[in-house]
């Protein structure tokens, strides 16, 4: 057999637009019930922040290579697992307390084979964590500036990682002490007071800005005295060295473990309400402003902002309109007219099952046939006349005389019995005259029963002479 395939039309359609509209209405009401949204924008170095000072790019880099999560809460550390867990803290907005350090380290040690803690911070806010793990490394929180470039706060640091040296420009970096130094800046001035250069200044030929330390078999720590080299604005810049450095650092921290989980600390990052934009607007780049503007627009589009006032306004207008009797009566009429205009020419398509093939049996009078089968056919005097004519024709063809002949009972009586034939002949002629209205007797006739009886008796008489009413159709 050959295959006959035809693709008539390629299109799909929604089942019901009404259903979608109902769902949208329910959604709008539900959103209104939730109240006015108060969107928070992650500020600082949060891995969730796409702003210039966020670290979402670093988070994306880590996620593209390793299993990566963002810890917004300490309890989220209960879900981490792996041969190696790397906990990354970059310039936290709030200091890490001793208790928090305890909770973080104990949970990680419980769930991971070994851990690495990476701190990139120019403030001593993470020192409690270093102290808790018995690390000798500390971030001093001072500021390193160039001696040879008019005290520029952007010294170049040489950091050695995985046998590679990286030259990165720091920004308001802090000195790091303890551990094994891996990053150094040369020919710098160290300012003890981070907020001012009025304090004591110390010239140093070299100052360390990055250190590593193996605390135990299961705990390693890496500290860099500056978080700015991991910010979005740096990693998005044209300088690819920072991306390379970030990748190298992640590899170093994971130490070649097959299942390495990287956890970004976001619980010490601050968020700001979008309504308090003025507090940090000065620090935002044009891209950051676009992002915040989009959130603003979405906030204003929220139904809880516009739906209640809109409904209140409509309600007020209706109250005003219904005060006037003319408007009161004309409004429903206008609504009906509008409905008529809108629905004019509209075609409603329902989701209906496939059309089933209709099977046919052709008949001259299908309804009549059905009525006859169900014995609810209406019989009248005309039907009696028809029957009389048919039987009369059959008798004329058979015996040469019709029902109106006086000798009928005598001739037919030879086969069917004289008395029976006579009774039949009298019955047929009596009702024939009545049907033709030549006689009024009997005055009340139930033709339904009379016709049925006439059919049965005619068939009986005809059968006795070897014929039938059906012989009417074969007179030739």
């Amino acid at each position, binding site marked *: 057999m050959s295959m006959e395939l035809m693709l008539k039309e390629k299109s799909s359609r929604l089942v019901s637009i009404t259903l979608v509209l109902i769902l949208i209405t329910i959604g709008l009401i539900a959103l209104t019930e939730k109240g006015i*949204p108060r969107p928070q924008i992650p500020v600082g170095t949060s891995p969730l922040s796409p702003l210039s000072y966020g670290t979402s790019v670093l988070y994306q880099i880590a996620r593209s290579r390793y299993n990566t999560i963002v810890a917004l809460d300490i309890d989220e550390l209960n879900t981490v697992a792996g041969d190696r867990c790397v906990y990354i803290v970059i310039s936290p907005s709030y200091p890490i307390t001793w208790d928090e350090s305890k909770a973080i380290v104990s949970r990680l040690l419980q769930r991971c084979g070994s851990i690495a803690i990476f701190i990139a911070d120019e403030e001593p806010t993470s020192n409690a964590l270093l102290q808790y793990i018995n690390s000798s490394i500390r971030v001093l929180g001072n500021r390193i500036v160039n001696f040879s470039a008019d005290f520029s706060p952007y010294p170049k640091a040489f950091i050695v990682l995985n046998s590679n040296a990286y030259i990165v420009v720091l920004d308001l970096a802090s000195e790091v002490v303890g551990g094994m130094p891996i990053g150094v800046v040369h020919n710098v001035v160290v300012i003890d007071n981070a907020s001012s250069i009025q304090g004591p200044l110390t010239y140093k030929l070299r100052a360390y800005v990055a250190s590593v330390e193996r605390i135990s078999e299961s705990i390693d720590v890496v500290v860099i005295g500056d978080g700015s080299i991991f910010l979005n604005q740096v990693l998005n810049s044209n300088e690819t060295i920072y991306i390379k450095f970030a990748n190298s650092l992640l590899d170093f921290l994971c130490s070649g473990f097959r299942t390495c989980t990287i956890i970004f600390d976001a619980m010490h990052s601050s968020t700001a309400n979008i309504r308090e934009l003025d507090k940090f607007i000065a620090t935002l780049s044009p891209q950051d402003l676009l992002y915040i503007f989009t959130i603003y627009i979405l906030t204003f589009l929220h139904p809880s902002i516009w739906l209640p006032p809109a409904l209140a306004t409509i309600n007020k207008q209706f109250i005003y309109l219904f005060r006037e009797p003319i408007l009161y009566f004309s409004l429903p009429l206008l609504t009906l007219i509008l409905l008529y205009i809108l629905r004019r020419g509209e075609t409603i398509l329902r989701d209906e099952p*496939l059309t089933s*093939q209709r099977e*046919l049996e052709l008949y001259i009078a299908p309804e009549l046939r059905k009525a*006859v*089968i169900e014995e609810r056919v209406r019989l009248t005097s005309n*039907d009696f006349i028809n029957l009389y004519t048919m039987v009369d024709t059959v008798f004329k063809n058979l015996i040469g005389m019709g029902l109106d002949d006086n000798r009928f009972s005598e001739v037919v009586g030879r086969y069917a019995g004289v008395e029976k034939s006579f009774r039949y002949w009298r019955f047929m002629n009596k009702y024939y005259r009545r049907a033709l209205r030549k006689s009024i007797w009997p005055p009340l006739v139930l033709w339904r029963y009379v016709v049925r009886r006439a059919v049965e008796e005619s068939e009986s008489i005809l059968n006795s002479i070897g014929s039938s009413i*059906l012989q*009417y159709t074969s007179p*030739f």
Partner: protein
Amino acid sequence: MVAFFIALSIAIDPSLLYMALTLLAIVIFLRFYVELSLHIFPKLVVNVFKTIGDDRTPIEIIYTIYNPTIVPIVIAEYGLHYSPLLKLIGGSRTGIAIIPPRSSIKLKFVFSGRVGTYRIGPLYTVSRDILGLFKSSIIEIYGRFRIAVPPAIEAAIVRRLWIYTRMAGIAKSRVSGEGIEFYDVREYMPGDELRKVVWRFLASQNRLVVKESERESYQHILFVVDSSRGMWFGPSRQTPAEHCARIVAAIASYLARRGYLLSVAILNESGLIFSGKPLAGAIGFRRVYEILSSISYVEDETQIQQLHDILRSIALKLPRERTLIFIFTRVADEDRIQTLIKWLKMFEAMGHIPYIITPIIVSYEAIDLPPLAQKLYYVKLYGTLKQELDGINTIKGCGVRVIATKPSDIPQKIVEIVELLHK
């Protein structure tokens, strides 16, 4: 719009995002699935297996649908269209099918057998997703084709014809040996000529059999079966068109054995199907039998081939020799009656002998009714009956030969005419 809601959920509560994305993913997946299935349907391999006997045996149509792809068709609504005169007795006209990947399913449809040519198909489907959110447009996966069901040869009628013609003395026993066309072999009987003995048969099977030849007869007989709409009235399988086809098959079976030259023509609103030049014997019968399965109900009501043109085509195809023409048709309206009279007179003028065999439609319609209901139906349709009988009288009055008898007596009547003419 969906993106807008996602953005809103981010703005209100980030935890809602997962639910929103999940719902969105489900909707997109379902939509994608329906789109995907639209591309799968053309790749389905559909084969059809038909089991067709005669009109006494059911017609089995089995569609095998093979899905060669790795994507399952989860819900495919299917439907089969077919000629409205067919009656489905097995299977479902519409249903839901699931076609696993790289697997096939079978859809079986069983129809009650009816004489004639009928349309089956197209088989079409609609793809739906599991939740019923989306559905595709209707796709035809297998086109339409035609099946031809020949009439059953009723052995009882043929036997009755043999008995009737022999006992009435209107036909002598078969004359063998006069012709040259081989017909069959039979056991040797005393009196058979020795030159007709098949010696090879005797040598191989040690049985004495003789060759029988077809009786050579040069009487041409043409059956014209009308299968226009009016001939399809009545209960399924008992319509005049089907009954006429069965009668012609039975008569042709008898007459072929008697050596007559047979041909048949089928006419309806779409035109004329002619069996070709009259043929004798088994070949002639087989040709007539095949053509009888071409009777068909014309569904397209715009097709109206005029009876006048059809009868003219028949006149042009008639052989020069005297031909007995039996036209099975109904005499419904005045125009039809006048056309028939005109052309039958023409056939007579051409030296042929035409007969009209006209079924009384009401009697066919009442055939399956209980006895009392049958008579009441006659009474109620007295007007129609009278009109048909008046039509027959009109034709007879014009000198046209008409056979209007009980359906069961028609074969006997025709054979009687043929044999008496040939005697």
